[in-house]
């Protein structure tokens, strides 16, 4: 409970950046997620936890505009002070544009977020070109800076992602997402599938970046230690529904719901 408190944690901001209202998605008869509502404020990091199959990825896919919910809405403030947009009311093309510019999505598998046949520098630079930047020198400079920031040597700028280790690929994906200066980042199990030592390095990097950039983020994880380290707030999901929500250290240290008590007691020390 001594988690470092972010200096950017939300002072002076009066409105949420994202608002989920009764978001539901079904797979035939089966519930993916149902009736999920919450507000996310600028600079806030929200964790979504719950066991396998509880609907975390389904919810994240709806929130991040990848899958359309069957009911409910996802409202987003695209630029500070702008009106809320219902992202699924937007024409497909506008939603795609929003997803590439105002948001970042970090996939669990770096292959889903990277272009494997394009150089590391190209992967990062491409996002700047999406935003309309055409100045080659400036793009390469920004790409170099971001590679360094995620602890990839600048000398490897022309290597392809398949020449990188899993941890490096994940760091490259993060650089590709953050270079375009998103207001909101979605991450699905960002440290899944990595060795514990590689995970620790990535987590520390994420912690520092989120804090320094004052990002709002939504992070799906089944790892409560990751949730404790990175998030301000948690929602706990079971069978597609939110069973408990609150301040991260409070939910983990004094869980109220039977399911959360089970989840926290199944782990030795978080």
């Amino acid at each position, binding site marked *: *409970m*001594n*988690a*470092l*408190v*972010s*200096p950017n*944690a*939300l*002072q002076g901001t009066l409105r949420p950046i994202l608002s989920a209202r009764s978001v539901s998605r079904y797979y035939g008869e089966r519930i993916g997620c149902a009736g999920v509502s919450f507000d996310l*404020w600028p600079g*806030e990091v929200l964790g979504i936890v719950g066991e396998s199959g509880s609907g975390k990825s389904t919810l994240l896919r709806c929130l991040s505009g990848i899958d359309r919910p069957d009911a409910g809405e996802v409202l987003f403030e695209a630029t500070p002070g702008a009106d809320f947009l219902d992202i699924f009311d937007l024409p497909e093309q506008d939603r795609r544009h929003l997803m590439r510019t105002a948001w970042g999505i970090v996939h669990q598998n770096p292959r889903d977020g990277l272009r494997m046949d394009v150089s590391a520098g190209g992967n990062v630079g491409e996002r700047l070109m999406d935003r309309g930047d055409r100045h080659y020198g400036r793009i390469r400079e920004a790409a170099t800076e971001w590679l360094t920031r995620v602890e990839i040597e600048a000398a490897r700028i022309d290597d392809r992602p398949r020449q990188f280790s899993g941890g490096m690929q994940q760091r490259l994906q993060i650089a590709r997402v953050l270079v375009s200066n998103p207001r909101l980042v979605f991450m699905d199990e960002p440290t899944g599938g990595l060795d514990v030592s590689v995970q*620790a*390095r990535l*987590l*520390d990097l994420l*912690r520092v970046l989120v804090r320094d950039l004052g990002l709002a983020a939504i992070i799906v994880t089944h790892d409560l230690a990751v949730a404790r*380290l990175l998030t*301000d*707030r948690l929602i706990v999901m079971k069978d597609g529904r939110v069973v408990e929500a*609150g*301040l*991260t*250290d*409070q939910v983990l*240290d*004094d869980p*109220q*719901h*039977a399911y959360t*008590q*089970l989840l926290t*007691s199944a782990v030795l020390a978080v």
Partner: protein
Amino acid sequence: MSDQPEMIRVEAVSKTFTLHNQGGVHLPVFRDVNFSVRAGEVLVLAGASGAGKSSLLRILYGNYLPSGGRIEIRHDGAMVDIASALPRTILEVRRRTLGFVSQFLRVIPRVSALDIVRDPLLARGVEPAEATERAGTMLARLNLPERLWSLAPATFSGGEQQRVNIARSFVDPSPVMLIDEPTASLDARNRDVVVELIAEARSRGSAIVGIFHDESVRERVATRWLDITHFRAAADAA
């Protein structure tokens, strides 16, 4: 003292744990706790092991949920009810007003002792150079060898970790400080430093609620006592 502002106001606070996975058993801890603490006071919580001292302190921090009651903390000149505040409000109150000193340091991978101590200063907008200097001064006061400052505390001894934790908490004492057994694994020399730090925070106007196993520490720092066993009886009888 009574001309100092009330910093903490606890009204009718109760706590019962419900252990859903152990047959739904209810564990009443205390009921109807009332007290207030003014700037410059040190309220020491007393009571046997298991009486609920740590639970009460955690409730004041927003780390445990009370089963009922209000916990008001003066923040930016207004009272904020921690029991009903939004998470982001609690985080903001913690960042600028409310500090918790626990017995154990929560180690963050790859972060050095010096950075851990500097962090609260940076979070409050102090310039990096000044923050480094103040952090170093604090670690030196707590007799942490300088060769350890740049290392991550994961490999430190229990007492060394505890001193890093104390340095972090006292490098810029919060207006309200909650302290749970800060001296448990310290030697007499470092215990004395902690007593000094508490006295200094108090004279700067911090309102402090603390739990101290060591009787001599307790007697040296306390300005008032609260025995929470008294409230436990009420919970048991209910």
